[in-house]
């Protein structure tokens, strides 16, 4: 089987790429970044109406395009290449990835809102004590009559300040790391008892720490009961992790090409600095890591699209590799841009900061190396093929 894109994927890539190069230049992005709310409703509407990509990952029955992890990869690579700030990852990939696996009628309804462009999601799963484990949950959902009452604290919830709906993981029972007793509920961020501390992250995106103080959850807002929630969470997080790997592949590609272009322009000692062998070899190392990151991202997407037995392990391997590549390629790009690289003025520092954030998002390289080892133990074959 080849790793070539299908014709449809190539078309998708080209149309999104064209849209972004027309409408999402570095200057256009800077205005969005420096303004309020930090993302562009106009662009979002265009994603829904002009490009139709907000439905990319959903079944055609839900108004989507029926795409798989490979389509998501194609999209995320382009979004990464343009450093798009809008909450596509949070809403479509992660939020949508949860919803499409939930049988609750409210899930289907919410998906429709995503596709139409008026619903944005954030998945509040991480907690201050948890480092990178989704199953380290202290937030409680206590029954109170037919409803439940939510109490707890979630940390660094990406996309929350822009979200119209929060999906929250909570415990109806079980101990701190138990998979039993975990449920998913849909919460209105404006509901009584919900308080957000909203902020930017270092890459200019939006996130929040969220307190839930006795928030009432009606029965229909329980998206997934404890029988199915852990599996749904793991599957959606795997997809989202593969998606940031693809985003990173787009970013790394830009970091390499921007650095090559800059060093060809910049002259010192009477020659373009690109003529210095040490810089050339460092750029080759960046190139190699960027190529390998793209390949690992592709592998992870393919495994998920195939529902392969080693899907989770492949995602862990990809994220571990790509995370380290983000750091190394990013730091090289800054270094080779010299003093210009550490300013806010050129694109390179913005790509760098997103790359550094991706290294941490959904778990660091160390975290995924550990996961890879644990998942490897369960696999029959450890070969590269």
């Amino acid at each position, binding site marked *: 089987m080849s790793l070539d894109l299908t014709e449809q994927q190539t078309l998708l890539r080209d149309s999104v790429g064209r849209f972004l190069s027309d409408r999402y230049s570095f200057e256009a992005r800077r205005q969005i970044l420096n303004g309020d709310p930090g993302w562009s409703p106009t662009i979002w509407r265009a994603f829904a109406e002009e490009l139709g990509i907000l439905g990319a990952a959903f079944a055609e029955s839900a108004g989507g395009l029926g795409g798989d992890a490979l389509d998501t990869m194609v999209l995320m690579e382009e979004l990464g290449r343009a450093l798009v700030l809008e909450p596509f990852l949070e809403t479509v990939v992660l939020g949508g990835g949860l919803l499409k696996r939930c049988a609750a009628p409210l899930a289907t309804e919410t998906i429709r809102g995503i596709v139409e462009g008026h619903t944005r999601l954030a998945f509040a799963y991480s907690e201050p004590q948890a*480092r990178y484990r989704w199953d380290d949950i202290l937030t409680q959902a206590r029954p109170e009559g037919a409803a439940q009452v939510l109490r707890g604290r979630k*940390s660094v919830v990406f996309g929350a300040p822009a979200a119209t709906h929060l999906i929250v993981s909570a415990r109806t029972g079980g101990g701190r790391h138990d998979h039993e007793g975990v449920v998913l509920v849909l919460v209105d961020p404006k509901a009584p008892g919900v308080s957000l501390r909203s902020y930017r992250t*270092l890459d200019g995106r939006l996130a929040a720490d969220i307190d839930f103080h006795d928030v009432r959850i009606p029965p229909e807002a329980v998206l997934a009961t404890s029988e199915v929630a852990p599996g749904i969470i793991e599957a959606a997080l795997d997809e989202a992790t593969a998606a940031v790997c693809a985003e990173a592949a787009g970013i790394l590609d830009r970091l390499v090409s921007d650095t090559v272009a800059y060093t060809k322009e910049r002259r*010192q000692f009477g020659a373009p600095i690109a003529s210095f062998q040490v810089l050339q070899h460092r750029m080759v190392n960046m190139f190699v890591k960027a190529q390998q990151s793209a390949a690992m991202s592709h592998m992870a997407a393919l495994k998920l699209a195939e529902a392969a037995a080693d899907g989770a392990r492949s995602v862990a391997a990809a994220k571990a590799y790509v995370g380290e590549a983000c750091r190394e390629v990013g*730091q090289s790009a*800054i270094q080779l841009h010299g003093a210009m690289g550490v300013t*806010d003025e050129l694109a390179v520092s913005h790509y760098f*900061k997103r790359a550094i954030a991706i290294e941490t998002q959904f778990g660091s390289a*160390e975290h995924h190396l*550990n996961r890879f080892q644990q998942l490897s133990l369960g696999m029959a074959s450890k070969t590269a093929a």
Partner: protein
Amino acid sequence: MALRSSDDDEAFRDEVRAFLEAKFTPELRALTARQAGVFADGDLARRWHRILFERGWIAPAWPTEYGGPGWTPRQGAIFQEECARAGTPRLPGMGLSLCAPVIMRYGTDAQKAFFLPRMLSGEHYWCQGYSEPQSGSDLASLQTRAVRDGDDYVVSGSKIWTTHAQFANWIFLLVRTSTEGKPQAGISFLVSPMDAPGISVRPIISMSGEHEVNQVFFDNVRVPVANRMGAENEGWTVAKYLLEFERGGGSSGVPLSVALERLVDIARNQPADGAASLYEDPVFRRDLARLEIEVMALAWTERRLAGRRRDGESIGNAAASLKKLCASELGQKIEDLSMRALGLYALPDQRGALGTGANESPIGPEYAVTPTARFLNGRASTIFGGSSEVQRNILARVALGL
């Protein structure tokens, strides 16, 4: 080495500690703990400068004749250690550490008498005009012109990456006074007040969002010939003399050890998979131990080469570059691990809680406020003051004869 200090040294250490205890007040400590820039910002720097000046401790490396405290090298090291451990504000050294040696060596008596006391008191706040937009690593290619007109030079051009130009009232700068011969041959070293007509300053915002550096424009600025240090067209010699101080000041061991201690504090408080804290995680512990050992290796190398330098062995000439190279790269590794130790709390932009004017509470734990900004600002350390590439070029030539 566990220097077996003399009783005098221990008494001196007690004196320094008592001073810091008294003068580095809780208010100053709190302000300083929220600093993530390369240097403390202007107001804080001025306040702490004043406090040290009043105690007579602002210029440990200066000879007593100019107002130095007359310390032994060991006392200087103790002072540096104690300040680093207490976490006092990082003062910009453009005046006291860079320009002062130049004035002492190349200045006239009049220049010495005018500048040195004002530098000491903090009345003069200096910035450095070396780099230009087209002249970074290749400093000798600089283009800012200074044309002689009577008793003045008329200076036109632009300097960039000028740290704290927005706070400074004096600048020292390299200018081209001749285009004859090699590029190095026509350079002169001038100083000018920042309020001279024709000087303007454009802020350059760093990727962490901070304003530490600037571009400074010179539009027919008149600088008296009396403000030249050294002979006309011999500024390159002066410039190189200064660069030695830029690469060389102080010992790297203590500030790097302090950075490691901060990292250990984070690690003890951070959760980990399968261990009581990140500090107990064997993989993290190995990474940490490696860094501790690298800090030891650099500190002992500096000490060893200091002896060689005294002996005049050629290796001594390489010591400053070796130190700049290793300390900056090692500092980055520590910043990198410190940021990663925070987990997801490495991600929030903490600008609202950083700096003297900040009034927001931290996002996440208090110790999460500075590491990310330090990480981002620290990227500059291998670029400014002679990039790592330039230091390796120097070492290839000086240490290996290539």
